[in-house]
């Protein structure tokens, strides 16, 4: 029986290129390219690496977003994933992380059986790192976040991961089915393949809210317990102070006095 992996991915604006309108506090999205969220690309790469190493592995990418998010699924399929599913419906628009994970969980239940769910740690547009763990909770699955190293036994039942911490890492053993979130240290995502781009069998399915049989009172803007009321760019820090002095010793002394005054040292 196939080992089934579901990767949760998101199409995001390339935040390297994005600016915030200081007047309105909204994102200026005009002309900003949309990309596969970088951490999600690491999750896709892990799935494809498992597919490369073992027979009969099936990788489905699931996402929620506007119709153009199909481009991101196209990219995932051109990298080698088997199938893409987009949940797209006005009813789920404006969802926060809680409502999003309700919709994605419903979509995963609709997909049916799976052995492993992967997601990126967080998306570069919101940086919340909440959707993956929420899906695991709602699906009642064991989860490990911040995965930077992965190994699986040949019977595909037991996974050993390294979970990155600020000052080290944990080694955790976990049984499938489970949920993992990937960080960029895990791997280097592959490029699309030209043959993948031209593969006519790429299967992308679009589901609306009715298709995933989700309770409409749990998705969308109104069902979202959090909402963003203002975005802003923090004011840049002021210019640094230039110290002047005749000798290096004078400069060092001056610096020490100032640091002591400010109780830095």
């Amino acid at each position, binding site marked *: 029986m196939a080992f089934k992996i579901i990767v949760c991915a998101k199409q995001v604006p390339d935040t390297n290129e994005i600016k915030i309108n200081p007047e309105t506090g909204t994102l200026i999205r005009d002309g900003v390219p949309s990309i596969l969220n970088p951490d999600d690309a690491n999750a896709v790469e892990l799935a494809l690496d498992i597919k490369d190493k073992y027979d009969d592995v099936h990788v489905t990418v699931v996402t929620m977003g506007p119709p153009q998010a199909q481009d991101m699924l*196209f990219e995932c399929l*051109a990298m080698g994933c088997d199938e893409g599913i987009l949940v797209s419906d006005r009813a789920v628009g404006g969802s926060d992380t809680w409502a999003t994970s309700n919709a994605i969980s419903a979509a995963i239940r609709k997909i049916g059986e799976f052995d492993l769910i992967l997601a990126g740690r967080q998306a570069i547009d919101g940086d919340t790192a909440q959707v993956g763990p929420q899906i695991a909770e709602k699906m009642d699955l064991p989860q490990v976040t911040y995965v930077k190293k992965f190994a699986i036994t040949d019977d595909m039942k037991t996974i050993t991961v390294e979970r990155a911490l600020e000052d080290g890492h944990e080694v955790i053993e976990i049984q499938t089915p489970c949920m993992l979130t990937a960080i960029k240290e895990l791997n280097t995502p592959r*490029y*699309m*393949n030209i043959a*993948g*781009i031209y593969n006519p069998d790429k299967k992308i399915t679009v589901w609306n809210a009715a298709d995933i049989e989700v309770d409409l009172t749990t998705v969308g803007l109104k069902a979202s317990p959090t909402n963003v009321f203002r975005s802003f760019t923090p004011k840049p820090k002021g210019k640094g102070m230039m110290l002047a002095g005749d000798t290096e010793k004078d400069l060092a002394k001056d610096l020490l006095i100032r640091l002591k005054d400010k109780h830095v040292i």
Partner: protein
Amino acid sequence: MNFQLTKEQEFVRKMVREFAVNEVEPLAADIDREHRFPTETVEKMARYGLLGVPFPTEYEGAGGDHISYAITVEELSRVCASTGVICSAHTSLCCWPIFAWGNEEQKAKYLPDLLSGRKLGAFGLTEPGAGTDSAGQQTRAVLDGDEYVLNGSKVFITNGGYAETFVVMAMTDKSKGNRGITAFIVEKGDEGFSIGKTEDKMGICASSTTELVFKDCRIPADRVLGKVGQGFKVAMSTLDGGRIGIASQALGIAQGALDVTVDYMKARKQFGKKLSEMDALRQVVADLATKIEAARLLIYQAADMKDKHMNYGPKSAMAKLFAAETAMEVTTKCVQLHGGYGYTKDYPVERMMRDAKITEIYEGTSEVQRIVIAASVLGK
């Protein structure tokens, strides 16, 4: 008429752009300086299908078309023209003639290794005494039992030092002139076949350009590509397509030079103004950008005609002529826009200008392209 790229073609550009920026550009200056063939890049290109773009998957090609192939060479050449021509010579000059002229056994035997990039290909037509006058072939092939015996040499062979499969022209019946030329498939390791001198070139220094030497080289008679006496046709039809590849290389060089120059002009200040704010220089950039776009349209049109099996020869000649001369003009002016810095190896436009020159020479000089174009307009 539809001037939009397909979704697949757009994704090919996105993919090759990312690949080129991450894998090719960081090496470009070093491999140029060291005259080093980038074997590691060729392996990566193979992995991602860049060495079999416009061929069907049944032979392990990528299943793309000639526009996506043109985009591939363009994007590689935008950052490294040497890497671009490795792909172009392999694809257009070796894979294509075997695909178009080979019999089923030959296609099954050679194409999977070539299109998957497990083996690199090259093409041998030019000789010391037969450049533009390619009918003046001195390399002879004589049938001896069920083998042909080849004697002679070929020069300026792109990928020569690293290819394992070669499409080679030789004279089988000198009395018939052009119709006495036959195309053969030669393999690395064939008895009597060796790689001669490696050229020390002005540009595309990381590509391998060598001599091929045939000294009583014996190959089985079933290595004839097409029919005996069809070699000139094989060669000319191959070069029609090759011109799309070289035009794309020229386009990539020009676009790459303009892109780095735009960045430079936005950063460089003189007389209290950025170069990008100076009207006289803006006029120059407008002309360069226009010519690049015109070259691009000619190339994609020729590639589209090739995919549709139309008579694209004169169009690919126009594309190659215009793109090559555009590359030379754009790179020369981009060096000028950089001032003294542009003349140093600290900035890539110096390399790009050296690389651009060859596109006016190989796979048919600009003069030859004008002959082809004039014949299509005025008759022969």
